[in-house]
Structures are given as C-alpha cells and as structure tokens.
C-alpha cells in the first residue's frame, strides 16, 4: 500500500504535535519548523498529483482492513488537485503570517497545521463518516484560527460561524445515520453500489438523507440562503486566515462533487442526480447575491468576502449541470478563484497596513507608501477575480460559459454570469479608484515599509493567476481528465476490490 497517501495527513499532524510541545520555544524556531512542515506538505501533494495523473485510483486502507469495513483514503485526480490547491495556498498564507500575524498567541501554527490536516483528510477520505470527522477537524481548527488575533470584532461573526456549523454537523450526522440505516455501510464506493438497490420506503429515507447532506455541504460551500455567515466572518479574520479560508468553501464544493457524482450520480437509479435541480438556480442566485453584497461592501475585506460567495455561485452552477465540460470548467475556475481571492485578502491587509486609521475601508485616505506596488497587485487580483482577460479568471469563465449547451440554462447562466462580471467591474473600479487614486494629504506618520515576506506571499498568490494562464493547457488537460474520471463512478467502485497487504492476489 502506498504510504504517500498518508503524507498530507501525517505531515501536518506531526508538525502540529511538534508545535504543541514547543509553545514556549523561540518564535523563530517555531516559524521555521511550521513553514518547513507546510513546504514538506506541498512537496508531498505534488508527488501525489503526479501519481494521480495516471488516472488510476490509489487506495490506502487504514489498519489494513478491506474496504468497505475499514476507513480508506482514495487518491484520484480530484483529490490530488484539491490537495495541491490547498497546499500551495497554505504555503503562501503561512509565509504571510510570518509577517507578524502569527503573533498574539502561541497556538497559531498548531491550529494552522491542524486545519491543513483536516482539509487533507476531507479531500482524501473515501468514507462518509470519516468525512464528517474531517469536517469537524477542519472546522474546530478554523474556529480557533478565526478567533486568532485578539480584539472584539471577530467574536460575534465567529460565534455565528460556530453555531451554524454545529447545527450543520448535527444535520450531517442525521444524514449519515439515515443513509446508513438503509444501506448499512459508510464507505462511499460501497454506498454508490448499495444506493442503487434501494427501493420502497427506504428510498424516501435515502432521499431525505441525501438532500439533508446537500444542505450541509451547501452550508460549508456558502450557497444561498446559507451564505450569510461568511462575509463578516471572513472580513474580520486575520489576513492569512481569511486567505486560507478561501479554500474552506471549496471543501463544501468538493464534497458536493464527490458525494453527488459518486453516490448520487447518473447511475444511482431512482436517486440519480439528487438535488442538482436545486443547486443550479440557487447557485445563480448566490452569484447575484454575491454581486449585490460586493456592491454594498465598504471595505476591501468584505468586498473580497463577497467575492468568495460570487465564486461559489460561479462554481456550483456548472457543477450542477454535471456535464464533463462544465465540471472541468468549474474545476479550472476553482483553482483560479481560490488562489486569487486569497491573494486579494492578503493585498487588503497590506493596504490596510499603509493607510492609518482608514485601514482597508473604501474611503479617501492619505497616500500609501507603496501605492504603485499595491495597486498593481490589486489590479491583477481583481482582473482575475472578475474574470477579465488576460488572467486565469477569464479562462475559467470562458470555459464555464462555453461548457453549457444552448437552452434556457445557458440563457440563465450567461446572463447572470456576464451581468455579474459587469457589476464586478464597476465595483472593483470604484473601490480601486477610491482607495488608490483618491488620496488626501493627511498628516499620517510615514507608514511603515511593507515587510518583504508579506509582500512576497501576496505577490505569489496573485501571480498564480498568471502561472495558471501559462500552464493553462496542462491544467485543462488535467481538469478534463478529472471530470471524465468523476463521471465514471464505476471505476471508483473498483476500489472495493483492493487487495490488502499480506493477502494473496
């Protein structure tokens, strides 16, 4: 069995354990070890990406127990992609935190690494209940991270986030229970098999369970009407945390893709494509709500928080359509939007650090010391976010637009997406022109010079939108292959036949 599969889980786990012991070690040592952990994690996920690209499924059976009995990790293209998205994002966020936002309490790096562990478990696990556990790990770590940084602004949004997610966890458990009570299994591949045989009243139970599970994932993904916890929570989080959280909604999206294509996919008979007719319109409304929120945002961070919601709508609409092209397009867009929006959160923090009491509010303030540098980052970031050429967001958006077949769905998707882009254009040009252009000669003490590490991290993430364009062909080849793999659950189901160590083949 390929031990590499555990690397994205064990590396942050061990890193976090080390950090737990080092609470009182010098901060430089803790930082070095923490970032080394993230780097190592990145390396391991790249290895996994290379492995997954052969299109086969790699199974790791914990405790050497044959699925569906034990918990398995399953590496496929989607999992590897999510891992890489996350670890690259994490590296830059982590670097950014070294600029000083990791100070304040000694738990930051521990929580950060645990957060990564939770995310990576979620992406790799092939077991529905273990997915619940992964969600809990990543959520509890995110609660801690969300509250990181002191002050009073985060408490209430944090509390809302926690309470809603606790309700979500309860619903998750109920759904898992309902599905288990009929199918008698938890392994996702096995569930895919068992769900097809369900009939009679049991069908209603599975349907209800499946739909409730969808609500849970929609809550994580911040789909309307379950998205309102997000803006304030993200807008008040410390920059590297807010940036890292760009991937949190993607976990919900990932879960929807994973569960609803595998278990409730085309082949699921009476429960085929469960709930997707709800997702499509809701995704579009989410997109619209995101744009409205962005229009009304009065500071950069809440603006970008709403952009997260816009991204969610943009992502889930094509996913709900479920064709190979639309899935591939959505995945492509996901890569772009995750990094871009995260980068923008970092830029917002840099901007805030240069404007005295105005912070990142969209108001007139004294000129920034590094205005040109920051405005270029902002420009690139918002171009990518709004999907304007020539950056990655544009390619993603074009792919999405192109992926939908003519018909009413196309009309809806195109109108909402394009009008949304148009309004984003207005929003971003307005915000940018006020913040970067409309300056006053205030008697602000000369703002501090930006730290090299934070500038580097923000630039890095923003620059990913260029890197994606440069690598667009291989990335697209990968997402297309991923979509095809996802639409062929039969091969996923084969993981049930994996041979265990020491077993005769």
């Amino acid at each position, binding site marked *: 069995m390929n031990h590499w599969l555990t690397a994205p889980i064990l590396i942050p786990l061990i890193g976090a354990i080390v950090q737990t012991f080092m609470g009182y070690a010098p901060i430089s040592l803790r930082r070095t070890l923490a970032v080394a952990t993230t780097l190592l994690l990145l390396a391991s996920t790249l290895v996994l990406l290379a492995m997954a690209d052969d299109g086969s499924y790699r199974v790791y059976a914990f405790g050497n127990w044959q699925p569906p009995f034990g918990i398995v990790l399953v590496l496929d293209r989607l999992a590897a992609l999510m891992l890489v998205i996350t670890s690259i994002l994490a590296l830059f966020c982590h670097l950014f935190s070294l600029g000083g936002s990791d100070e304040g309490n000694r738990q930051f790096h521990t929580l950060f690494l645990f957060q990564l562990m939770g995310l990576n478990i979620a992406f790799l696990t092939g077991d529905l*209940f273990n997915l619940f556990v992964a969600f809990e790990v990543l959520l509890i770590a995110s609660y801690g991270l969300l509250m990181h940084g002191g002050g009073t*602004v985060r*408490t209430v949004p944090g509390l*809302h986030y926690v309470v809603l997610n606790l*309700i979500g*966890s309860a619903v998750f458990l*109920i759904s898992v229970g309902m599905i*288990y009570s009929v199918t008698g299994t938890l392994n996702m591949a096995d569930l895919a098999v068992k769900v097809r045989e369900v009939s009679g009243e049991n069908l209603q139970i599975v349907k209800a369970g499946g739909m409730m599970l969808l609500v849970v994932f929609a809550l994580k993904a911040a789909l309307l009407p379950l998205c309102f916890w997000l803006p*304030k929570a993200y807008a008040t989080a410390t920059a590297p945390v807010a940036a890292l959280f760009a991937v949190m909604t993607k976990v919900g999206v990932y879960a929807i893709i994973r569960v609803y294509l595998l278990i409730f996919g085309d082949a699921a008979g009476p429960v085929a494509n469960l709930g997707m007719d709800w997702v499509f319109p809701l995704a579009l409304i989410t997109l619209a709500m995101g744009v409205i929120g962005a229009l009304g945002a009065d500071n950069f961070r*809440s603006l970008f928080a709403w952009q997260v919601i816009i991204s969610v709508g943009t992502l889930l609409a094509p996913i709900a359509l479920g064709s190979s092209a639309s899935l591939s397009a959505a995945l492509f867009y996901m890569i772009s939007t995750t990094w871009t929006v995260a980068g923008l959160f970092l830029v917002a923090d840099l901007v805030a650090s240069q404007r005295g009491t105005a912070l990142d509010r969209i108001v007139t303030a004294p000129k920034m010391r590094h205005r040109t540098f920051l405005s270029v980052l902002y420009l690139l970031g918002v171009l990518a976010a709004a999907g304007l050429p020539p950056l990655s967001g544009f390619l993603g958006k074009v792919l999405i637009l192109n992926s939908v077949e003519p018909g009413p769905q196309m009309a809806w998707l195109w109108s909402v997406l394009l009008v949304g882009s148009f309004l984003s254009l207005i929003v971003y040009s307005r915000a940018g022109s006020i913040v970067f252009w409309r300056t006053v000669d205030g008697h602000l003490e000369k703002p501090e010079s930006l730290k090299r590490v934070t500038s580097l991290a923000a630039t890095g993430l923003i620059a990913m939108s260029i890197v994606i364009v440069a690598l667009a062909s291989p990335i697209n080849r990968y997402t297309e292959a991923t979509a095809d793999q996802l639409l062929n659950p039969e091969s996923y189901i084969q993981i049930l036949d994996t041979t265990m160590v020491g077993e005769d083949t």
Partner: protein
Amino acid sequence: MELMYALVIGTLTATGVYLLLRGRTFPVVLGLTMLSYGVNLFLFSTGRLVAGQQPIIGSSDTYTDPLPQALVLTAIVIGFAMTAFVVVMSLRSLADHGDDHVDGSQGDDSQAENKHRKEGSGQ
C-alpha cells in the same frame, strides 16, 4: 417501543431547534446540547433497538450492530469538544460586548450593524 423512541428523538429535535433559535448564547448552547442528544440517539438507533445484545463477544448469542455505537461515541466526544468551544465563545462574546446576546448587543440589530461596520475593518 419504536414509536416511543421516535417520539423521544422528535422531542429532543424539536426542543433543540426551538432553543437554538433563541437570542442568547445560553439557550443556544442548551439547544445544541439537546439537539446532539437527539442526533446521538438517532445515530445510535440506526443499528436498530435491541436489549441485552451488547457487542461484547461472548456476552450474548447475537449482537447488536456495533458500528453505530462506535460512531456515536466519536460523535459524543466531538460534540463535547464543540460544546466546550461554543461555551467559551459565548464567554468571549460576553467579555467583548458585556452582553450575552448572540449578536453581541441587546438584539438591537441596527446598532449592532453600525457597530460592526465601524469595527469591521478595525483590529
């Protein structure tokens, strides 16, 4: 027996939901606790209800489904951690706002809104 059990779960869910929707942190915590009782009992019962068939090998002729029990055990522990966290969060909110309203102030929405807007970008 099953109907009674179902009613118990229904009651726990209903009271849990009702309490969750209150405006103060304390009843919300109670609601979450109540809801998780209901959820745990529900998850537990997915193995169906039997008496005296505890899944200890050798203690009985037939055994109840042990898997839901293990799942519930995990759920209880996680629920405990979450409860502790949310309790502490409400304390923190109390410390920060001098009030235990879930929205941070005496439920005066507009005031809360303004306050957030002002503080939203502050650290």
